[in-house]
Every structure is written in C-alpha cells, then in structure tokens.
C-alpha cells in the first residue's frame, strides 16, 4: 500500500477501522466459543470496543448526542449487562458450562460466507453514506449476521441471549457508522428495551430451569402444538 493512501485516511478513521476489525474478530470468537463465562467476557470486550469507536466518532464529528450514546454504552454494555450475566450464571450454576457445538469449522465457514455477502450488500449503502465511518458499514452488517448465526447455532438459553445482545451491539455499530447514530430518543428507547429484555429473560431462565431441569431450549420442542 503506498504511503499516500495511508495518509488519505485520518488517524481517527484508522482507529475506527481498527475497532471495526476487532468487532468482526470478536464476532467470530463468540461464534466459536464454547464456554459461557468466556462468552460473557467477549461480550464485555465487544461493548468496550463499541464504546471506543462511538467516542471517537463523537469527538471527531462534534456530535454531542453521540457522547451520550457512548456513555450509555459504557455503563450498560460494559458494566451493567456483563455484571447481570455473571450473577445470572452464578445463580443458575452454569458458570463452567460447556456447550457442545457441532462442527465449529463448518460454522466458521458459513460465517465467512456471511461476511462476503454482507460486504457485497453494504457496498451501495457505503457509497451513498457521507460519514467518515462509511467503510465500516459492511463490517457492522457482517457482525449482525454473525450474531444471528450464533443465535441459530446455540441450543442453551444463556448463550442465545448473549447472541441477541451481541446483535444489538452490532446494530448500534451499524447505525453509528452509517448515519452517526440514531436520534437520542430512539437510542434511549433501545437501551431501555435491552434492560427490560434482560430482566424478563432472567426471569424466564429460572422458569425454564424449573420446568425442564435444564437450560437447554431443545426441551421446549415438545411444547409444539400437535
């Protein structure tokens, strides 16, 4: 790569690109991670990266509401949610649970295919978008799809919820990179949704375990109406 091209991207842009790369990496890491505890840590890390990238976007573009978003991300996704999840798996005594994932290489390959699709799909959007972060739209979309894939491949309740939260992270990242974030009201609403959803799912976990003596949602298959 010629030096002039590197100079074309300002430092803030490079940091954001770095963050995006880390996001994608974390997405893959979560996709292939078996341990619940590690999964939560990865999720926390993803929140942290999200916070950093949002903060940089906020500082470079003088979008004051993005500062609020960044703060909210830090509090909610780096501290609150991982803390709740930690407590939850302790209470549910699934801290050292290992989930048997079938055929990790295949899942990874599907993930790569998804990234290709995401980049291909995001290309026209990136061209339309005028933000400094537009290069990362593809990555954000890829993260969404990877989180979705994770939701499909997991059969235990807690990893599925983490996948859901990761998807929300990725969506937030996509919104930031495409349009400098959503309006404040929407963001607050989403943050509240995530909190409430977390609480409800927490209650739900206990109910599932009470009913089936396990957190494996495959047990719920027999609730199907015959």
């Amino acid at each position, binding site marked *: 790569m010629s030096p002039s091209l590197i100079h074309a991207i300002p430092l803030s842009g490079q940091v954001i690109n770095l963050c995006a790369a880390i996001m994608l990496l974390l997405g893959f890491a979560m996709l292939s991670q078996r341990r619940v505890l590690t999964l939560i840590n990865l999720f926390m890390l993803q929140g942290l990266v999200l916070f950093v990238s949002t903060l940089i976007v906020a500082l470079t573009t003088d979008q004051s509401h993005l500062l609020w978003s960044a703060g909210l991300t830090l509090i909610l996704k780096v501290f609150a949610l991982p803390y709740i999840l930690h407590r939850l798996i302790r209470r549910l005594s699934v801290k050292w649970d290992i989930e048997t994932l079938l055929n990790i290489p295949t899942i990874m390959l599907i993930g790569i295919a998804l990234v290709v*699709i995401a980049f291909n799909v995001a290309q026209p959007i990136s061209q339309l978008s005028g933000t400094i972060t537009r290069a990362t739209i593809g990555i954000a979309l890829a993260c969404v*799809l990877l989180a979705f894939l994770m939701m*499909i491949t997991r*059969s235990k309740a807690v990893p599925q919820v983490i996948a859901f939260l990761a998807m929300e992270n990725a969506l937030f990242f996509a919104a930031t990179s495409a349009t400098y974030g959503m309006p404040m009201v929407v963001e607050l609403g989403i943050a509240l949704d995530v909190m409430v959803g977390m609480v409800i799912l927490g209650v739900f976990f206990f109910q599932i375990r009470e009913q089936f003596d396990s957190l494996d949602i495959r047990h719920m298959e027999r609730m199907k109406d015959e």
Partner: protein
Amino acid sequence: MHEFLLIDWVLTTALVWLLIGLIGVVFQHNFTLISRVLFPLGAVCGLALAGLALSGIDGSPQVLVLPIGLPDLPFHLRLDALSSFFLLLLGATAAGISIYAAGYIRKGEGTAPGLQCLLYHLFLTSMAFVLLADDGYAFMVAWETMALSSFFLVTSEHRHDEIRRAGYLYLLVAHVGAVGILLSFGVMAGSAGDYTFDAMRDFPTLGIWPTIAFLLALFGFGAKAGLLPLHVWLPEAHPAAPSPVSAMMSGVMLKTAIYGLLRVSFDLLHAQLWWWGALLLLLGLASAIFGAIFSTVQTDMKRLLAYSSIENIGLIFVGFGLTLIFQSFAMPQLAALALVATLYHCLNHAFFKSLLFLCTGSVLHATRERNLGKLGGLIHRMPWVTWLALVGVLASAGLPPLNGFVSEWLLLQSFLFTSGLPQGYLNMLLPLVAGAIALIAALAGFAMVKFFGVVFLGQPREEKLAQAHDAGRLERIGLLWLAAGCLLLGLLPNVVITLLDPVTRQLVGSGLSFAASSHGWWLLAPISEDRASYSPAIFLGSIVVLMPLVYWVVNRRFRRRLKRVPPWDCGFPLQTSRMQDTAEGFGQPIRRIFSPFFKRTREHPSPFDTQPRYRSLVEDPFWYWLYLPIARIVGYGTRIIAFLQQGRIAIYLLYSFVTLIALLVWTRG
C-alpha cells in the same frame, strides 16, 4: 353550528340506541331497569327512526361528515331515499322486536341481560350505520360491527357445543363475505384510493372491472343474505340465537345485504349488464326452491323458519335480477315494477318473519321445546300467540288480504311483461321462472300449514304442554305491532307504492306512483286496469261477509242433525295424541317427490327390537358437494404449512435469517 338536519336526527337516534346499550351494561345488575325501561326505550327509538326515515324518503339527499375514525379518514354519512327506506324497515321492525324482547329477556338464560342489552343495541346501531354509510371505510366498520355483535348474540348460550359451532360457521361465512365486499370496494375505488362512495360513483363503466366489482359484491352480500350456495350458516345460526335476535337477523340483517347490493349495482355502478340480472335471477330462484323444499321437511320450528327465510331472500333476489334485466334493456317502467316488488317483499318479509320468529320464542319459553314432534295443541293454552302467528303464517304463505300476497303478486305481474325483452333466450326462459315461483309459493304455503298445524292445532303431544302459558303483556304488544304491520301493508298497497316512488326514481329513474294513485286508494293496478288489478279492501270485505255466512249456513244446516255417538274404532281402540299426523309424516310426500334434493339417512327399527327407535335425518347436500371438499383442501394445505412449525427455536430463527439474507441480496440486485 349548522342547522340540525334530518340526518342529524337519524344519527342521534342511532346513537341513543348505543347509549341505551351502554347504560344497560353499566347497570347490569338492575334487571328491572333493563327489561322495563331500556328495551321499551329502544322500541321508542325504533319508532322515532321509522318516523324520521318516513319523512326522509322523499327528501333530497343529505350528507354529513363525522370527524371520527382514523386521521384524515372521517366517516361520511348520507341519507337518501334508498337508505331512508331501509331505515324505515329497520326502525319499524326494531320497534316491535324491542318491545317483545323487553318481555322475553330472562335472567339466567345465556348471556347476562346487561350484556345482551349492549350487544342487541349495538347490533341495531351498527345496522343503522351500515344504511347511512357513504364511504367504504365507514361501511366496512359498521358491517363488521354488525357481524360481531350478532355473532355474540347468536352464541348467547355458548355452553352448548352445537351453538358454538353454529356461531363459528356464521362468523366464518360473514368474514369471507366481508372480504368479498372489501375487494369490491377496492376495485371501485380504483387506483385513486378514495373510498368515498362519491368517488366510486365516478368509476369508469368500461371494461371488465365493473363486472368484477359486481361479482365480488354479489359474493359478499350473498353470503350475508344467505344466497345459495352460501346459505349454510343461516339454518344453523337462526335456531341457535335467542328468538328476538333470530327475528332481527332474519327480518332486518338479511335486508342490509339486499341494501348493499342495491347500492352497489344501481347507485355506484351505473351501467348494468343483462347477464348480471340473469345470474341473480338464477341464484335467487335456486335459493327460493331450495329453501322452500327444505323448509317443508324440517322438524325444528326455528329451522323451518330459517329455510323459509332462504326462500324469501331467493324471491327478493329474483325480483332484483328482473329489475337488473329490465334496466339493462332500458325499460325503466318495468324495472320500477320489479323493483317495487323487490322492496315491498323486503318490507313484508321483515314484518311477517319477525312475527313468526317471535311466536316461536313465546312457544319456546312456554314449553322449552323446539322440536315440532313434541308440540301441538297450543291453541288452547296460548290463544294470543296462536292467532297472531296465524296472521304471520297467512302472510308468509302469500294469501290475500295480507302483505305477502301483494309483493308476490307484483313479482308475478312483472314476469308477465318479460315477453317484450329483446333477448331470445330470456324470452323463452323467464316464463318458466314464473312457473317456478308459483311452485315456490305453493311449497311455502305447505310449509306454513305444517308449521301452524303441528305447533298450534291438534292435541298436545307431550304431557308438559298442559303447563304452557301465553305470552306476557309486553310480548303481546310486540307481536300485535308486527301483525298489524302485516295487515296494513297488505291492505294499503297503494300507500306503500307511493312511498316507494322516490326510491325507484333514485335507482331506476321511474316510478309507479301514477299507477298507485290513479285508481283511488282501494284498487291497485300496476300497469293498467284492464290487465290486472287487485283490491285488498274488496277482498277483506268479502272475507268478512262470507265467512260468517258460511259458518251460519253450515251451523244451521248440520248442527241439529249431528249426533255424537261412540265411534266405530276403525281398528284403533286406543287413540292417543301420538297418532296425529307428525311433522315428519306431513312432510313425507314432499320428501318423496323431491328426494334428489336431499341427503337422507334413516334408521328403521326391526320388528323384534325391544327398544325401537326411529330416526330420520335430512341433510343439506351442499355440505357434501361443496363445503366438506373445501374443508378437506384447507385441511390438507394447513398440514403442509404446519410442516414449517418444527418447534425448534433454531429453525424459527433460521427462517428469519434466510429471509433477511434473501431480502438483502434482493435489494442489492
């Protein structure tokens, strides 16, 4: 503040009904209030509405825009001659039924009285709104409210399985029909997306779209009216509902469907094609024959009346079809004649069928029995109900000087002019239809003789019938009102025809008023005096004179010579009330003659059976020809679709995932 117009008064009356219903549900524990104040008040509202509508018929159309509903989508209302006529029908019938319901409603029967009060009055309000609506949106809202409120009224005694099933069937057909109506409005609204009837009136009359709109409307309104082959809900829902509700549904609700189709085919679509009329005529004829035949073989008195409703709706559609045929060949005078017959029959049927349904309600309360085989001899216990039912029965059988005769006679009169039609096939076939209508009238008479004879005449077939009591005072008022309506509509045809004049002028551009007025009030000659004329007054006069005369002569000649002696037993040493002609027995010849129409299962006891049981079940063949195949196809389709439901969350997520990817790729490409 604008002037308080007639339409505002009509609207106010309709809303007072709603208010009465709400009061009823608020004070639902005060039974006296509900039965002695609210329902009679509803009847007064009905009278008021009838009076207002009467003055609205020859007034100019009035419009009103109500700022309710969705934003930018207000309710448009309109009062013109057509809607006024049907509002008159609604108000006048509702007055009788409401006052009857005040006496009929009981605690501890099905739905609580307060709730029934709300549903009943909501039903009335929604029907008034259906008649007033001037845009597709208001119409559909009112139409669906009508369907839902009547559904809950039908399933008032929802603890019985069969009643729930009847309600479900009713709701299903009502909704399928509503889809048809909605699509029809959609076609007429066109691409402009303006659903006011005013915009639909500008719908271009070229091409195939008017036909599509008409056929969809026919499907939708036909489902509500109980036109063949969408009639199956009617004989199920009418017996299931409490009697005032059956009366309301049969008497008025079916007519809202006629109103809707009249509105669509004459007001919204201007140019009619003759084969629309021929189609209506055929469907109506099929319904009428089918209903008449089936009503003769029923053993449940309310089912008998329900099939009779199908028959009458069929006759109304025959008149409607004939109107369309005449109109499409630009013969407004004859179209007006056929339309008068149609509308007249709507009004007549509303009166006599409500009367009969209410009579069955009184019988039901007095005996707890709907099965004709267990009734009989009620004339001694229930003289009021019997004599008033006789009026309804005579009217329904189409005998002069009652109202049923006038409309059927007018209908047959209009058939006599079909030879002037410039269409060869119609010329040949329509006289056959006239013949079929004569057959239908005879069959209807047969069914009515059966109904009246088995229920009221002869000897009681059960012990418990001795305890039967006559209708209460409020019930009698309701029955009297409707019976008086039957009599007056029969005696004063000229008044009614003059009243109908603005309606026919609005729809087909011609009227019969000159025919009604040119020969004085007592002689009706729809086309000319030397072709055909009818004078109910002379008829009534001769009946009044001749009947006592005959009675007197017979009495005088035979009374003295008649000796009562123990009869030779004719091989019947013991004679019980069971040996009377039963409902099954009475209908047997018809069942034999028309056997291809029925699907029949019989169980005969063997001679050595110690507990002999005779069972004969006559079923509607349409179930087997049409509905069960459709149900099987739907069942098969849903089983295939049910394959999607695997019960695994991962699979469900995969569905959304694949959809997401597909959509993304699609928007990209």
